[in-house]
């Protein structure tokens, strides 16, 4: 129901239809509207800029290839975000396979809250939060995010960084409402624990 309501006001639909009729140039509007957001979602998930750019390109190419299959059951953007999340997960999987034995903190995240190995690595640094530079602070936050377990990280990125609604997250990730909430709750707790360890007093 709500998805249909969403698609009724989907500004992208006009251009999607044009692409479906073979007008490839119309796709450039969709690219210019969404590339920034897609890049940022992917970047926060991968924590690697070049790789994120690479994946973002793949995402748009995949979307273009299968645009004929887009049935407007959800908003185009939601459909695109889902492709982005799937491609990012694939990339993370490849990365894990590649560096299984030299994995730093993506894999062996064995915190009770399902998170944060980065924090144990750098907890000794222990600067009090207020003395840290903004840049250092951001770096610490980024480190903690990339230390989160993948399932928690994606919910945190979509909700707290990208500002998605719970409804939208549910559609993009195809998980029930309760799962979105419980993952987000754990992700936030894990972030708090991690930041406490990395930057000291919050």
């Amino acid at each position, binding site marked *: 129901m709500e998805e249909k309501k969403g698609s009724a006001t989907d500004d992208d639909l006009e251009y999607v239809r044009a692409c479906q009729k073979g007008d490839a*140039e119309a796709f450039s509007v969709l*690219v210019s509207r969404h590339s920034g957001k897609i890049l940022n979602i992917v970047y926060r998930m991968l924590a690697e800029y070049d790789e994120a750019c690479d994946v973002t390109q793949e995402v748009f190419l995949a979307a*273009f290839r299968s645009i004929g299959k887009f049935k407007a059951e959800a908003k185009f953007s939601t459909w695109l975000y889902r492709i982005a999340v799937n491609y990012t997960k694939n990339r993370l999987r490849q990365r894990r396979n590649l560096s299984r034995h030299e994995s730093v903190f993506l894999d062996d995240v064995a915190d009770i809250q399902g998170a944060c190995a980065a924090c144990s690595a750098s907890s000794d640094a222990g600067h009090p939060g207020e003395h840290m530079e903004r840049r250092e602070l951001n770096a610490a*936050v980024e480190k903690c995010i990339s230390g989160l377990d993948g399932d928690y990280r994606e919910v945190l990125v979509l909700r*707290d960084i990208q500002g998605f609604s719970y409804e939208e997250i549910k559609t993009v990730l195809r998980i029930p409402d309760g799962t979105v909430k419980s993952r987000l709750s754990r992700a*936030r707790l894990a972030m*708090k624990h991690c930041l*406490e360890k990395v930057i000291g007093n919050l």
Partner: protein
Amino acid sequence: MKNCKDIENLLPLYPEDVSSDDERRTVENHLASCDACRGELARLQKTHRLVTDLSDVEEPVWFQQKIMARVRREAQKKTIARKWFYPLRVKIPLQIAAMMVIAVMVVYIYRAGDEGIKEVLPGALPTKIESPASEPLPPLEVTREPELKKVPPVNLPEKVRVGVDAESSAGVMRPSAPTPVPEAKREAAAGPESDSQAARRYKSLSPAMEQTVAVPVADEIAAFVILRVPDVSRAVSGTEKILEESGASQITRRSLENKTTFHAFVEAKNLNDLLSRLSGLGDVDQKKIHEVSEERIWLIIEVTKHKF
């Protein structure tokens, strides 16, 4: 009353008003009397602020153009596939389609007679068919030497014949070959077409092939230009005029949102002059300009509003 551990698990979503009324009331009551949990909530909120304060990363320069270059390349593949397959209403491998074209041509050439071969060959066959089936061409020449080839051209089952490749087709080519024309016809058209129908079909395929060749492949994109201007609509007419005056051909224009994209072919020697004239309209940003030996360059110009 719940203990702090239970409350702690409710705190992360508490500020967002997504918990049930019951839960909210429980948390509120507990917070009123528990310093530790108030501290915990404050730390969670600080964490939340730190996370939401992260700034977005910017896209690299030419990022969207790069994506579109790949998309165009993909679109071209689609178009070529459509041209080849859809008129036939069946999805058959390219080679077989090409073989059929050759076979139809064989009939055509055979009927045109020995004299015709010389006229037809250069234009009809080489280079335009981008498929392995164009390789068998040299044997066509060779087969005209009388001592060559004892290929039994008749009575081969259709499938084998198609797969056999030009050796056997070349056999059909041989003026003295005993192959009856109807046989070749059957394999060529895979249906009860008459000779003239077959020939017509061949003719109708030729222009399509030429188009395929004429459409530039994305690798050949020689010049990408972004023109940033204060007034897009004025600059668009200016750009069009400049393109026309520079002798550009096949100019197409597409306006989407606040951006207009031109595609055109220009003579390489006119390119620099064209670019310098464009810079009179606004800020010109150019990329991927190879030193090409080709005389014609596929040029893409994006006219967009200046970002102040």
